[in-house]
């Protein structure tokens, strides 16, 4: 699979190339938005990683242009960390937004996740009980949880908490509500238990548990699975 890496800093492009080649990908390089669009047109590219601040054509414009003709996954890479920058990037059509300085392993994980999601056909309806939220899938018949096609091992309590939230996507559950649902006991002396389980689930299903895509923390209210991610 071919990945196009575009950043005006050559060393960053080369470092990303090394990591991607180690994972068995082919890498094409570009150093500004125009080059990236050209390569996207001329070659068969499966995924694009693009920086925002670049000469000639910046990453936001390039992404916007690319989206007119292509539906491949695009990951934006940027030193801008503001929420508004992220929202802008995702709004012009990027699939993911990674801030600099990034952990290279996290970037590779995100590349793989995007590709799996892009290439895996949506699960065939086999009459099984399946709950889905983006790339997160629970098969309640097999008690199996997959994220972008990759299986995740959860403990029974973690599984039940995740199932509860998945069955009620978008609904916010407080700690005591989760406690009462899962343990079937009245929540009198609640403690950190539920919160700890939630963090463990996040560490297993999220690439970056501090910025969860699926299991969101609503601070001071509870937890929920994002209805549409």
């Amino acid at each position: 699979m071919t990945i196009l890496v575009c950043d005006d800093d050559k060393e960053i492009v080369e470092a990303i190339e090394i990591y991607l080649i180690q994972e068995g990908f082919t890498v094409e390089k570009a150093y500004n938005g125009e080059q990236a669009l050209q390569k996207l047109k001329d070659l068969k590219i499966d995924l694009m990683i693009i920086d925002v601040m670049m000469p000639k054509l910046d990453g936001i414009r390039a992404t916007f242009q690319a989206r007119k003709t292509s539906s491949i996954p695009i990951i934006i890479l940027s030193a801008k960390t503001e929420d508004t920058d992220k929202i802008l990037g995702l709004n012009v059509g990027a699939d993911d937004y990674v801030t600099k300085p990034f952990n290279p392993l996290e970037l590779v994980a995100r590349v793989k996740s995007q590709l799996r999601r892009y290439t895996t056909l949506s699960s065939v309806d086999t009459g099984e009980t399946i709950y889905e939220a983006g790339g997160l899938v629970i098969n309640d018949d097999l008690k199996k949880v997959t994220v972008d096609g990759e299986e995740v091992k959860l403990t029974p309590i973690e599984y039940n908490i995740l199932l509860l939230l998945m069955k009620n996507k978008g609904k916010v559950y407080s700690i005591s509500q989760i406690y009462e649902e899962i343990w079937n006991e009245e929540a009198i002396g609640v403690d950190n238990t539920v919160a700890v389980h939630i963090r463990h689930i996040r560490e297993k299903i999220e690439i970056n548990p501090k910025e969860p895509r699926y299991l969101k923390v609503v601070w001071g209210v509870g937890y929920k699975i994002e209805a549409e991610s």
Partner: protein
Amino acid sequence: MKEYTTGIKSAVIVIHQMFIVLMVCGLFGTGYVAQRNLQGMGLLMLLSVIGLVGSFVTLAYLTGISGRKSTDDPVIYLNMVDKVYTDVQMVLFIGFIYLMFYMGRGLRKLDFAFSGLLVAAGTVGYLMDVVFLILYLSIVRRSKDNTLLTHSFIYQCIRFWRQVISTKQSPKRCTKKARERYEIQKAIESIAAGALDTRLDVDSFHGQERELAEAVNSIREGLSEAVMDRIRNERMKADLITNVSHDIKTPLTSIVNYVDLLKRENLENENAQNYIRILDEKSQRLKQLTEDLVEASKISSGNVKLDMQRIDFVELIYQTGGEFNERFEARDLTIVTKLPHGSVMVEADGRQLYRAIENLYTNAAKYALEKTRVYVELEVEDGQAIFSIKNISKTPLPENADKEHDLTERFVRGEASRTTEGSGLGLSIAKNLTNLMGGTFELKLDGDLFVATISFEVLGNN
């Protein structure tokens, strides 16, 4: 638009006065001629009629333009004469007219030549007209301004006594001076309370009070300029830090990536491995530092969007505890939590309040002495939800009480050396975020005991 300049007005006045002199002389001449049955009465009468008509026409025009500066400007401009009370003006005018008649009384008997008498009559007529014009135009201006009656000695007296009676204060305190003093005092109070747009209208003050009013105005101006400057500087600083940190992040990305690549190179040399480990740690710390720096500067310049909601403080503390328990366990710290049963609702931005509390937990996880307990409490007292976290510091805390304050300053840490992890921004971020959301942040140091509290007003159950 047509302008009424002083030149035009003066010219009209001069023409008007020429007509008046003509009329007076004409009338006087007619009388003189009639008395002595001389010739030429017709001509003199014609001259006086021309003078009469001309003076009335010019007077009418003056009435129209008096007090105005242009056709487009509806403001009525008053001058020095208009400051004299209407009734005082009247008395002065009547006095003057009386004086004129008194002096002109013997004019008929004087045995002057006709030409001499004409000059005398013309002069008297001219002087009277000047005084009349001054009074008349002043009345015109003030009736246009709607102050003809209010701006009179009698009216002011009535008003003053009415005020004395209605407020039941001693007459002394109702004087203009007292009123103006009171206004200045009010202005100073509102400036002290932070209303920096309070401005006194200097023209409405007199004497000493005017000087005071001017001084108050200039203090206000200086103060508001200083405040604006500070806000601007703080913004510029925040922008600078954001831009610089963007520029730092790009090379830092390469450093982090290549250090990581070096780690995978299976180096045999033990020294080299050690060096890489150090590089790795330091570059990670640099990364953390740049991120915290941007956050801290944004928060201290108030550049954060808040999403204020009703949230449950108790839930938030449990959630935070869940994020941290392993970090505490790793350093053999025990969290002892004492929270109320049921929920405690406050108004805050959950995410930002979490960040503030997260910083306090991180602080405890980093700086608490190993194998001790960390106490986390939430109490409700006098309508305030008071969150507190207490821990025993592993290094001595600053002894000087003033330094409690300093710990929340950027880059200040409890220990003098700067070798350990942490950016020194945690407490500053926590304090500024809390204050931004309307809560109170406090630190107490007692020997090795470190206590941080965050309090918010409790919301009712509606």
